[in-house]
C-alpha cells in the first residue's frame, strides 16, 4: 500500500480535494518519514510545529471550499531561501543563527498558494558544490545505493538535500536553486525531475545570492507534472528584483500533456565529449528515439563554444560571488570573530565562517577582478558568454524547438570520491548543465533509465527563453516512455 508521503504531488492534491485524507494526516506522514530518515541528513532543520499549524489552516480552507492551488501540500525548502523567523544558514557557519525578518519571494508565493513547510534542506555551502559535501552541516547521503553495495553515495549538489528528500519521500516536492547545474545534476543523481527556469522567471528576492547573473530558483519533484505545478506557484513578476521578468506565468501543468508532435529537437554534437561512457551515449540515443517515436523530428546541431562554458563560468561565478559574499563581515548578521582592529575582525570572521570551497571561489573572484587582470579574465569571459548565447540563438533561429543532452557525465559517485586534490575534477560534473546558465535559458533534467549498477541517469532538455512549456511537454514524453524510476527499499528507515 502506498503511504501518504509516497503519493505524487498531483495525486496528493486530488486526494485532499476529494477529502480522502486531511492535510494534517499528509503532513504527519511526512514528519514521521523525516524522523526515520535523519541518517540521510537531508534536512538541516525540521519545522514540525509550523508544518502542523499550516496543515491545520489548509484543512480549514479545504473544509470551507476555499482551497488554493497548493493547499496542504508539504514541501521542503532549500536552506538558501530566507524564511521569516526560521533560521536560514545557506549551509554556512557564517550564517549560523541567522533568523530572517522577511520571506523570500519564492517561498512567499508557495505559502500564498497554501503549501506547508516541513523544514529547511541541506545544501553545499552558499550553493557552491556538486555533491553536497561542502555543507557546514554535514554531507547529505543519497537514498540510492549501487546494486549489492552499501557504499554511501552523494545526492549531487548543490541542491543535494532537496533531491535526497524528494527521492526518499520526505516531502512531495522541494525548492532548489541552480547557478551552474545545482538543480539538474542532483535531480539526475536521485531519479527525480528538476527544472531551472529561464533567468528572470522566478524572483531572486530573499534568496541568498551566489552569482547573481546566473542564480535561478526552480523545483525538484518526483514527476514532470509535479515540477510544472510547483513552478507555476514559484514563478512570477516581482518589482523587488529588477532582473525578474514582467511576464504572466503560463499554465505549466496544461503544457505537460501537449506532446512533441511536429517539434524539432536538436542534438548538439559538441556534447559528445571525449571519454563519454557508452551507457550515457546509449541513454542519450534512447531519449532521442523516445521523442522521435512521439512525433518529433531529431536533428544534429552545433553549439561550437560549448567547451568554453565551464572555464568561463569559473571566472564569472567566482567574480560575482566575491562581490556578493563581501557582505559577510561580522557586522550585520551571523558570526563575528574579534580581531586587533576592524580589518582583523573582518579577516578572522571570514576565515572562521567560510569553508574551503567558498574561500577558494572568493579568492579566485578577487584575483580575476583585481587591477591588471580584469580585462584578461573577466571581460574576456563575458565576451565568451556572448558567444555561447549566440550559439543557442542561431540553433533556435534555424528551427530548433528544444535541445536534448545528457544531464551529467556519470551516475552518482561515492562520498569523498571526487575533488579532494584538484577542485576542477568536481567542477567537471557541470559540463552539460553550465552552458544553460551562461545563456540564461531554461533547462530540465528528467530520469531516463538506470545504469548497470542500478543508479538513475538523467537527460537534459534545453529550451528557448521563457519556453519552459515545451520542456515540460518533451520531458513528459520521456517520463512516459522510460517509466518513472522506482526507489530501492528504504534502507535508511
Amino acid at each position, binding site marked *: 500500500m502506498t503511504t501518504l508521503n509516497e503519493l505524487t504531488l498531483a495525486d496528493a492534491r486530488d486526494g485532499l480535494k476529494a477529502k480522502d485524507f486531511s492535510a494534517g494526516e499528509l503532513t504527519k506522514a511526512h514528519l514521521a518519514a523525516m524522523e526515520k530518515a535523519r541518517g540521510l541528513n537531508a534536512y538541516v532543520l525540521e519545522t514540525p510545529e509550523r508544518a502542523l499549524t499550516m496543515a491545520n489552516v489548509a484543512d480549514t480552507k479545504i473544509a470551507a471550499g476555499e482551497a488554493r492551488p497548493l493547499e496542504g501540500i508539504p514541501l521542503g525548502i532549500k536552506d538558501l531561501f530566507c524564511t521569516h523567523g526560521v533560521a536560514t544558514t545557506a549551509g554556512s557557519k557564517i550564517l549560523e543563527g541567522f533568523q530572517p525578518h522577511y520571506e523570500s519571494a519564492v517561498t512567499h508565493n508557495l505559502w500564498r498558494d497554501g503549501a506547508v513547510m516541513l523544514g529547511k534542506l541541506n545544501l553545499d555551502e552558499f550553493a557552491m558544490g556538486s555533491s553536497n559535501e561542502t555543507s557546514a552541516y554535514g554531507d547529505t547521503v543519497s537514498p540510492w545505493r549501487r546494486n549489492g553495495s552499501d557504499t554511501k553515495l552523494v545526492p549531487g549538489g548543490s541542491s543535494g538535500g532537496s533531491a535526497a528528500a524528494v527521492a526518499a519521500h520526505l516531502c512531495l516536492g522541494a525548492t532548489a536553486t541552480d547557478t551552474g547545474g545545482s538543480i539538474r545534476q542532483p535531480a539526475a543523481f536521485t531519479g527525480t525531475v528538476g527544472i531551472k527556469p529561464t533567468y528572470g522567471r522566478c524572483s531572486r528576492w530573499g534568496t541568498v545570492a551566489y552569482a547573481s547573473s546566473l542564480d535561478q530558483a526552480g523545483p525538484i519533484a518526483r514527476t514532470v507534472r509535479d515540477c510544472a505545478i510547483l513552478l507555476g506557484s514559484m514563478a512570477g513578476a516581482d518589482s523587488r528584483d*529588477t532582473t525578474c521578468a514582467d511576464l504572466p506565468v503560463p499554465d505549466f501543468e496544461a503544457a505537460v500533456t501537449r506532446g512533441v508532435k511536429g517539434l524539432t529537437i536538436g542534438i548538439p554534437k559538441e556534447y559528445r565529449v571525449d571519454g563519454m561512457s557508452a551507457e550515457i551515449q546509449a541513454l542519450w540515443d534512447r531519449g532521442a528515439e523516445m521523442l522521435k517515436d512521439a512525433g518529433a523530428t531529431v536533428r544534429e546541431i552545433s553549439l561550437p563554444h560549448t567547451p568554453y562554458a565551464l572555464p568561463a563560468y569559473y571566472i564569472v561565478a567566482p567574480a560575482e560571488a566575491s562581490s556578493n559574499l563581501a557582505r559577510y563581515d561580522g557586522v550585520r*548578521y551571523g558570526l563575528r570573530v574579534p580581531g586587533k582592529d*576592524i580589518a582583523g575582525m573582518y579577516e578572522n570572521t571570514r576565515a572562521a565562517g567560510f569553508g574551503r570551497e567558498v574561500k577558494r571561489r572568493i579568492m579566485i573572484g578577487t584575483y580575476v577582478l583585481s587591477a591588471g587582470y580584469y580585462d584578461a579574465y573577466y*571581460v574576456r569571459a563575458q*565576451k565568451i558568454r556572448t558567444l555561447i548565447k549566440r550559439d543557442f540563438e542561431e540553433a533556435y533561429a534555424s528551427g530548433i524547438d528544444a535541445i536534448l543532452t545528457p544531464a551529467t557525465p556519470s551516475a552518482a559517485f561515492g562520498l569523498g570520491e571526487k575533488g579532494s586534490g584538484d577542485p576542477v575534477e568536481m567542477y567537471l560534473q557541470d559540463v552539460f548543465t553550465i552552458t544553460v546558465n551562461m545563456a540564461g535559458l531554461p533547462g530540465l533534467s528528467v530520469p531516463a533509465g538506470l545504469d548497470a549498477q542500478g543508479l538513475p541517469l538523467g537527460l537534459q532538455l534545453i529550451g528557448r*527563453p521563457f519556453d519552459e512549456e515545451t520542456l515540460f511537454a518533451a520531458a513528459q514524453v520521456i517520463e512516459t516512455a522510460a517509466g518513472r524510476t522506482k526507489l530501492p527499499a528504504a534502507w535508511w528507515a
Partner: protein
Amino acid sequence: MSVDATTVRRIAHLARIAVSEDEVAPLQGELNAILAFVEQLGSVDVTGIEPMTSVAPMAMKKRTDTVTEGGHASDIVFNAPETEDNYFLVPKVVE
C-alpha cells in the same frame, strides 16, 4: 598565468580572509589548478565581441523616486552580533 605565495597572501588580504602560513601552499596549488583550467579561454577569438551585460534582453526596471518602505530599524539590526539603540557596533575605526 599562475600565482605565487606572495600573491596568494595579497589576494587573501584583498578578500579579507585571514590565511595561516600552512594554508598558503595548498591554496596556491588549488588556485593554480583553477587558473590552469581557465587558461584555454585565451585561445578563443573574441575580436569585435561585446561582453555580456544582461543575459536576458530586457530594459532595466525603473520606478518613481518615492519612499516605499521604512521604519524597520529594529528588524534590520535584529541579527547583528553587536548593536546599540538600533545602530551596528564595530571596533573603533577612527582614533
